[in-house]
């Protein structure tokens, strides 16, 4: 199925997809070998899983921002729903499924489902708006999710699950355990996220996004992005396709949130604030809207960069900002791009193919 689809694609597109998979896999194999032979520093090893989570976040947001063309500023909200529901699920399953990778996989599925539901509910009011208004409302929903989770208590005891809002009214029986503790978040998480699991999730996210973009749905997304009125006039159900992209993106973000949270022993809702949403948006913008490989590279680079700048102590954040500005300028500079295109053996052919298909 996938092969057939790849063959039917324009060759440029197929090549780009292949290169993305190949590079991600190669990077994984190299890092995994370096990590197991202890060549990799602790600092780098500690960042492998969060980088995977940020890559998935970037790819999923790119689906909404780059392909669908709607600016979403609340993406961290879905990450946080995924983080909290996934960790809670993993904690509940702790005694049922002792094998960690299976437990993590199930937790990610739960996380994706919860985030998708949230995405659907939020999508209903959000997609009645356009442009800037839509962006601001997604920002507001991101903050609402943060506030809700900050006031949410979830406990478990022999009588089952107990919820409460604002104050802890769960009244757990003897031997019960409070899992989500409002502003204190979740403590004592078993760290079961691993780099291979992160890699698998990244591949799944890429497969989902590429297949969606190159399907009938993906064509519709781009039609809506390029000209909403024209798309509507030929009978594309705008609400339906927008919702499809948004819910898929939310589900992937949820799974990424779960992977991220299970890499630390503690997690709080405040971690997934407006700044995190913007950070992910920066990955997308720097990597290029609609360019999945770009998102992945940008996510990895911008996660590692502040750590590599640690030696500059107090000048660290200043340098980070300068590098970011330079990167944005360079990435958008025509001369620089032409220069790099000279080293790309496929560049000319791509243009030719483009001409033929026209």
């Amino acid at each position, binding site marked *: 199925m996938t092969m057939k689809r790849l063959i039917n694609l324009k060759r440029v597109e197929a090549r780009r997809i292949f290169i993305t998979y190949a590079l991600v896999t190669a990077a994984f194999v190299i890092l995994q070998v370096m990590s197991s032979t202890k060549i990799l*520093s*602790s*600092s780098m*090893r*500690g*960042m492998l899983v*969060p980088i995977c989570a940020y890559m998935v976040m970037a790819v999923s947001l790119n689906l909404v921002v780059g392909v669908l063309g709607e600016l979403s500023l609340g993406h961290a909200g879905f990450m946080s729903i995924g983080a909290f529901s996934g960790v809670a699920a993993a904690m509940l399953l702790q005694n049922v499924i002792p094998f960690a990778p299976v437990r993590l996989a199930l937790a990610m599925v739960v996380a994706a489902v919860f985030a998708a539901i949230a995405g659907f509910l939020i999508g209903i009011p959000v997609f009645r708006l356009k442009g800037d208004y839509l962006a601001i409302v997604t920002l507001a929903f991101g*903050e609402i999710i943060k*506030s809700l989770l*900050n*006031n949410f208590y979830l406990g478990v005891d022999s009588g089952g699950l107990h919820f409460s809002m*604002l104050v802890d009214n769960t009244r757990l029986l003897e031997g019960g355990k409070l899992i989500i503790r*409002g*502003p*204190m*978040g979740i*403590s*004592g998480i078993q*760290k079961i996220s691993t780099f291979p699991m992160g890699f698998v999730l990244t591949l799944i996210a890429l497969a989902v996004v590429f297949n969606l973009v190159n399907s009938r749905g993906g064509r519709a997304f781009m039609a809506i992005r390029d000209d909403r009125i024209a798309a509507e006039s030929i009978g594309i159900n705008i609400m339906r396709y927008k919702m499809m992209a948004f819910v898929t993106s939310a589900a992937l973000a949820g799974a990424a949130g779960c992977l991220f949270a299970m890499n*630390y*022993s*503690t*997690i*709080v*809702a*405040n*971690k997934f604030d407006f700044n995190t949403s913007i950070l992910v948006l920066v990955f997308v913008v720097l990597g290029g809207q609609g360019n999945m490989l770009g998102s992945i590279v940008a996510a990895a680079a911008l996660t590692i960069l502040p*750590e590599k700048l*640690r*030696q*500059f*102590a*107090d*000048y*660290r*954040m200043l*340098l980070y900002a300068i590098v970011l500005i330079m990167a944005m300028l360079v990435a958008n500079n025509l001369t620089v791009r032409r220069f790099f295109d000279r080293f790309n053996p496929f560049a000319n052919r791509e243009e030719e193919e483009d001409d033929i298909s026209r």
Partner: protein
Amino acid sequence: MKKFFAFVAAAALVMTAGCAFGANAFKLGGTGPLTGGAAIYGNAAKNGAQIAVDEINASDSKVKFELLYEDDTHDAEKAVNAYNALKDWGMQISMGSVTSKPCEATAAENFSDRIFALTPSASAVAVTAGKDNVFQMCFVDPNQGSASAQYISDKALGKKIAIIWKNDDVYSTGIHETFISKAKELGLEVVSDMTFADGNDTDFSVQLTDAKDKGAELVFLPMYYQPASLILAQAAAVDYAPKWFGVDGMDGILTMEGFDKSLAEGVILLTPFNADAKDIRTINFVREYKKRFGEVPNQFAADSYDCVYAYKQALENSQATADMDAETLCAKMIEQFTSMTFNGLTGSNMTWSKGGEVTKDPKGMIIKNGAYVGLD
């Protein structure tokens, strides 16, 4: 541009070279918020520890230290990154993290890597829970809440109490919980119990009106100094002057930029460190801190100063040498800290339980003429 980078690189080199102390020094590492909203705590802890390390290295002590603090911006993810960077540097014993949530994350790493940690100021219960090699120099949050209620009741500071607390903050929530339960036990009447959260922490008129209307004589503020400063200013604007009572997060309000110190007049706070204490060690420490950093040290600085000296004592007692690896030191430190008694700036006869919690007496302080003065 190149010149600028070269300059920065050179500066960084000089700094690291300045710290290097040869092979016979213990590598002591810690993470804390050196930038961002909580930076005052991280920098205080770093400065306090640095003074202690310099004093020890200049003395004829056999135990020498090399100290490195990494920035964690008060974030668990960054704290783990900072911790890993310290591991790459070769950290043998750790000062954990300065703030609670980040320390919870790094403590889990300390536990799995078998690197001993003594945090100066991370006060949440979860920091030490279930870990045999993570110890605290400060009180745990719940103890602060119940100690405050006890203090208010013992000194008869007020019968009708209002609380304003931050319900999306671990620190504030933890203290609030135990304060309420202890207050009930002691027969203190909590007449007003109001909250705020990130994002609506600039206007406190609702909370203050409620406290005033219900006739509260004392307002308990279990929070950091930033929102507390606004509460004090807004209360003054509406001529509401109850007794104010804070906990150790309030420490630092006097050194806050742009804060009118007269507003904090009469604020009582419970903190283990009193910069006005008359013992010779405190006087010396405060003088040195003022000389180097131009301000009065707060409790965080004193706690981390104590951490370094506690390490010195434990390392001397166990006859540890700097060429031992982290795991060997960890076992020795666990043995020492659960058995030794330590006298520091933040309390005398401190002891630690097996769970890593410290036992010491809190000191009440009151702000008078723009300075902290001991209440007892």
